[in-house]
């Protein structure tokens, strides 16, 4: 019985981790409410550096991480693993094609950056969001 309970608990914990659902977050002052999947792809690949209003997008990223919000977001929305994404961005940076996004080790630091930086965009687990950031829905 103990073993069953232990396995059930483990299953719940694991399920919870797997079900971490990354969402797009933006600074509360950003006027955009939704983006298409193609727009998200283009923004996070440095092809679209500006919001439709013309303001430069201040991109916030998490560092490489496996089994994390970072991995799930990149796999689901960009089609890359964290390492492939890092390689991609290093290529942009060392050929001068994009400015360096802000990167963070901790999700909380990324959320603070989004909350305090005008025109910023990033991603975070939907369960950890404070009211000071705005969730951007996917069309």
């Amino acid at each position, binding site marked *: 019985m103990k073993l069953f309970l232990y396995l059930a608990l483990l299953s719940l914990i694991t399920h919870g981790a797997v079900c971490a659902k990354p969402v797009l977050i933006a600074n509360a002052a950003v006027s955009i409410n939704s983006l298409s999947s193609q727009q998200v792809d283009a923004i996070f690949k440095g092809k679209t550096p500006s919001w439709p209003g013309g303001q430069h997008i201040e991109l916030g990223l998490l560092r490489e991480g496996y089994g994390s919000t970072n991995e799930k977001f990149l796999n689901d929305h960009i089609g890359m693993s964290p390492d492939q994404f890092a390689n991609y961005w290093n*290529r942009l940076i060392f050929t001068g094609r994009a400015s360096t996004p802000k990167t963070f080790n901790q999700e909380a630091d990324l959320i603070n950056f989004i909350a305090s930086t005008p025109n910023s965009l990033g991603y975070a687990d939907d369960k950890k969001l404070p009211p000071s950031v705005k969730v951007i829905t996917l069309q």
Partner: protein
Amino acid sequence: MKNPITPLVLIIFSCANFLHAWEYNHIDIHGFFDQGYLASSGNNYFGDTTNGTWQMTQAALNASANIGNNLRLGGQLYTFRLGDIGGLTTPQIDWLYADYHWKDTLSFRLGKVKQPKGLYGDALDLEMTRPYIFLPQSLYAASWRDFSGGILGGSLYGTLNTHSHGSFDYNFTAGSLDIRHNSGLLQEISDDSYANLNTATENYALFGQLTWNTPTKGLRLVASSAYVHNLTLKGFFKSQAELDLMPPPHNSLGAAAALLEGAPTSIIIPHVIVGALSAEYLWHDWTFAAEYSRKASQYHLMVEDPDAASLSSGFVGQTTTKNTTNDFYLSASYRVNPHLELGSYYSIKFNDIHDPSGSGYAAEGKNRFNAYQKDFALCARYDITPWWIVKIEGHLVDGTFSTWTFQNQPWQDEKRNWAYGALQNVFYF
């Protein structure tokens, strides 16, 4: 490690981190420093590699900044040494341009811009972006870096989105190549010609690339083309002693060689046409790639010496050589864990699409296996920290298309089957 600046670089780079620039007044500053060791058995490759060489160094420093919402300025200083190619004391501007992002569908770059070619043509030097030390040499020959590097000119580029068929990235670039006196291109062409070449002059070049980012996530298909017009390489006719060390027909010029020694000589390449088709598929922690390319060119050898016109040996003031290369590779890499990535590729290059076995070479008296190079590579990349990578790579090679005669004397003793391996230490921030 013999290189004395490595410990200093280690300290400097330990202050930086992945995707973290040193930022000064909103100017992003990045750099890298790579030191390698290259060794081979059978034949020398790029340098004195049968004895092993540390002459495998490259470094770069770049700065860039956004000016307002649409304009971006930046540049990168770069230096490298690979065996007998390049020189660490002669850094060059790798790229330096103004980038005006008008809208996603149409933007402009002006200055010295990177050349769009295949999947990785703009990232030849960027060790931190791949597991391999050497990109497949069939398409990305390290000796032709100057030919494949920056373009003095400008680009039009953009992305066209479709609702259900993915998106298309395009890039049209025009300008001129920037070929240096110590470049591998001049050495490689000199190695197979009557002249020692030391300058590259007037030319213009056009490049086009269309990338289809397919609706299948991770799959992109790329078509690239390049056209280089009137590339003129200048130097002086070789001495009899130098020609005697070369394979036929260069070693059989006879009395004409003495007449022409030291004469100003040009190799004019009126047209170089390159076409490439590429596919890359990112699937979970796997990266698969395949590329096919052809390069068609025609060389005119011009000897600017009155004696040349009087020769009756069939070698007169001008000779013409045509050829079309045939290049292909397949590669796969797998990220085992956050630190370790393994990769492999098989790369094939034929000097002449119509003579893949080298029978024409054999008929001329050359080594038949000089007409091709088939290279099987295995590599491992280990990310020690987010700013420090070490790599190891081994190659088994059949054929000597990319080796140089002057580094492998006597040329009759070149080995058809040979191997080379490399270690690479990469710091970047």
